[in-house]
């Protein structure tokens, strides 16, 4: 099965994204020998799309957040035909943070007590107070731009001033004010001042296809340089096929395919899964053995189940006055007026509105023509100019509830270039999500009309919006209802850990990256506190 066996290491981390970078950096101080295997490559910001005139085309092509569209050699295909929400990810050093918006909210205290408060989902085995110091530590490394005093949150500190409102931010803020509803400058992982060697944002736009300025805190330029200086080895172009186990039922290492296609075995004392909510269950389910015939850490059959996205609604208004178009970071403010449960709304839990500043010249044309607002022929130019820099709005990030039938399995036919089975997604929107999405569209429409929009259009669910991948190896104290314990260790395999979004018990109604990274630091800290009894 294996072509080469490497020298044993203490820890092997699978995946160099948001969580893998954070756990690698935190564990580095132990002086253990740590190797991270990443199937993608290092990024070169000078190659990012905004360095060229074709930046919008490349954002839909080689920098698309859809792996099925991007089809880079580092990618694996994903069968998401049985899901109304399509998967977004990125495979490279930094993982999904290379292409994320940098919208960077924390969870709320209530998000960890969903069962107790609302009778749905499950409670987390940890609470906000437990995670708060790790949020703070992560914030210092990432550098968060924001404004203190948000009444929707417990007190928290920002390292830098908030992103500029611009014309579009002012427009949307006026709409929320007219309704008497909450809004606040977003916490953002985009530097508004020079920070730890990163330069400040210069409003390139195009954040979703990589930040050529280096102002956006992707993990390749935050955690990784520090982790490598501290002694962590990062091997790129290494695609893990499976985690192996020994006769004692402990993880013994990983089998991977290197850049040259050679199969290698990396022995390790500890294996840490950091491959996101799709990649981690994919590898675990592909790690079958006599002791674990249904996949590693899967004796209770929960690996891959309870997949959660954030169902998104997109709501945009057309205004007579000029907005910002694609210039500037896409998001600059949020509203959490409807975050907490209110039974009168007809659904439980809630959502965050994240402002979407505008769109570029090409996207304005494509969306306008697709919607029939821009005709073919001589009417094209006037109709286009009525939309150019005239659109702004928001998305609603709705809390998804765990459902065991929403899951990741292995596709029986589709494989990646190394012959590893591809993940297959089975997912349906819940009635609760559908009701929440409709409510979110109706309220956002009121906001945008109050702000002066002459027309409002929306999309639910946002089909391309499978950015947040959660719940597929969730944490808990009960081995019957969770995959890992309250500090990230597998119930079944005592030297196997999970640190990515798979851990999430519930999804909250906010972007997950800040919580993913805080959780990774928390799990690392728990490991460090137990080094002498880690496998007991």
């Amino acid at each position, binding site marked *: 099965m294996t072509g080469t066996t490497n020298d044993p290491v203490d820890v092997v981390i699978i995946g160099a994204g948001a969580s893998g970078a954070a756990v690698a950096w935190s564990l580095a101080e132990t002086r253990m020998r740590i190797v991270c295997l990443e199937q993608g490559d290092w990024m070169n910001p000078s190659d*990012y799309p*905004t*360095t060229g*005139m*074709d*930046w*919008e*085309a490349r954002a*839909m092509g080689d920098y698309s957040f859809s792996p099925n569209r991007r089809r880079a050699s580092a990618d694996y295909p994903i069968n998401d035909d049985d899901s109304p929400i399509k998967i977004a990810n990125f495979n490279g050093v930094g993982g999904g943070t290379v292409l994320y918006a940098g919208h960077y909210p924390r969870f*709320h*205290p*209530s998000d*960890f*007590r969903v069962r107790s*408060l609302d009778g749905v989902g499950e409670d987390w085995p940890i*609470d*906000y107070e437990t995670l708060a110091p790790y949020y703070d530590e992560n914030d210092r490394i990432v550098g968060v731009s924001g404004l203190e005093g948000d*009444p*929707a*949150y*417990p007190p928290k500190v920002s390292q830098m001033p908030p992103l*500029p*409102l*611009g*014309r579009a*931010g*002012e427009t949307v*803020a006026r709409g929320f*004010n007219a309704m008497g509803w*909450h*809004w*606040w*400058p977003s916490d953002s992982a985009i530097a508004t001042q020079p920070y730890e060697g990163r330069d400040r944002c*210069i*409003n*390139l*736009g*195009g954040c979703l296809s990589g930040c*050529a*300025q280096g102002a956006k805190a992707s993990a390749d330029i935050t955690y990784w340089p520090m982790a490598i200086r501290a002694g962590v080895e990062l091997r790129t172009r290494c695609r893990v096929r499976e985690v192996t186990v020994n006769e004692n039922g402990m993880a013994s290492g990983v089998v991977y395919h290197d850049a040259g296609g050679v199969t290698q075995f990396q022995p390790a004392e500890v294996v840490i899964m950091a491959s996101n909510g799709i990649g981690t269950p994919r590898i675990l389910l592909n790690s079958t053995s006599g002791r674990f015939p249904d996949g590693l850490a899967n004796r209770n059959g929960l690996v891959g189940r309870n997949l959660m996205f954030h169902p998104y609604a997109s709501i945009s208004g057309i205004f007579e006055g000029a907005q*910002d*178009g694609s*210039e*500037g970071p896409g998001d600059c403010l949020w509203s959490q007026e409807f*975050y*907490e449960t209110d039974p009168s709304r007809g659904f439980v839990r809630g959502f965050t509105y994240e402002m979407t500043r505008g769109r*570029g*010249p*090409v996207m*304005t*044309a*494509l969306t306008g*023509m*697709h919607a029939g607002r821009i005709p*073919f*022929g001589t009417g*094209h*130019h006037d109709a286009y*100019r009525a939309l*150019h820099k005239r659109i702004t709005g928001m998305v609603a990030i709705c809390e998804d509830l765990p459902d065991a039938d929403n899951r990741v399995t292995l596709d029986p036919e589709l494989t990646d270039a190394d012959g590893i089975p591809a993940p297959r997604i089975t997912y349906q929107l819940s009635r609760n999500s559908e009701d929440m999405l409709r409510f979110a569209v109706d309220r956002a429409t009121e906001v945008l009309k109050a702000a002066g929009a002459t027309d409002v259009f929306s999309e639910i669910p946002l089909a391309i919006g499978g950015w947040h991948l959660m719940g597929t190896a969730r944490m808990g104290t009960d081995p019957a209802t969770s995959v890992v314990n309250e500090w990230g260790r597998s119930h079944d395999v005592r030297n196997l850990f999970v640190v990515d979004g798979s851990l999430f018990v519930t999804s909250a109604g906010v972007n997950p990256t800040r919580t993913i990274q805080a959780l990774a630091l928390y799990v690392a800290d728990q490991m460090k506190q137990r080094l002498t009894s880690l496998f007991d």
Partner: protein
Amino acid sequence: MSDLIGSSGRILSEAGTAVLRALAGAIIPASTEHGVPGADDEAIFTDVLASAGPILAFIGEHLGLLDELAGDGGFLGADAARQVALAEGFRQAQPEAAALIVSLICQSYYRDPRVLESLGTPARPPFPEGYDIDDGDWSLLDPVRARDPFFRPVN
């Protein structure tokens, strides 16, 4: 297969290229009022072809429909207004191919320096110069600052 397709089946024939160019001009015509070229402009259409890559063959397989819809004289023989109507008919009949064509054309058209300048948009990549964004009127936040904390207690 349409005679617009080259014998290899992978590239557009000369005739197919002419039809695609005329179609581009029908979708986005030149405008003297706005001082912009059409999408059939030499530089823009060259960019369209250069950017198309492997999907050009797929597009080529569908262009014959335009001639079928046009009847005698074909698409190239129709006047401008008729070509626009035929393009709409093409979009109704072949939405997937039409969407690809529209996408290709818009991607090249709306990065042409002449077009961007006519829109008041700098004809350069975003990086390295970036853009100026006003900080905004933070007094808008005053009514929100006045609110008491409203996050949900858990104890």
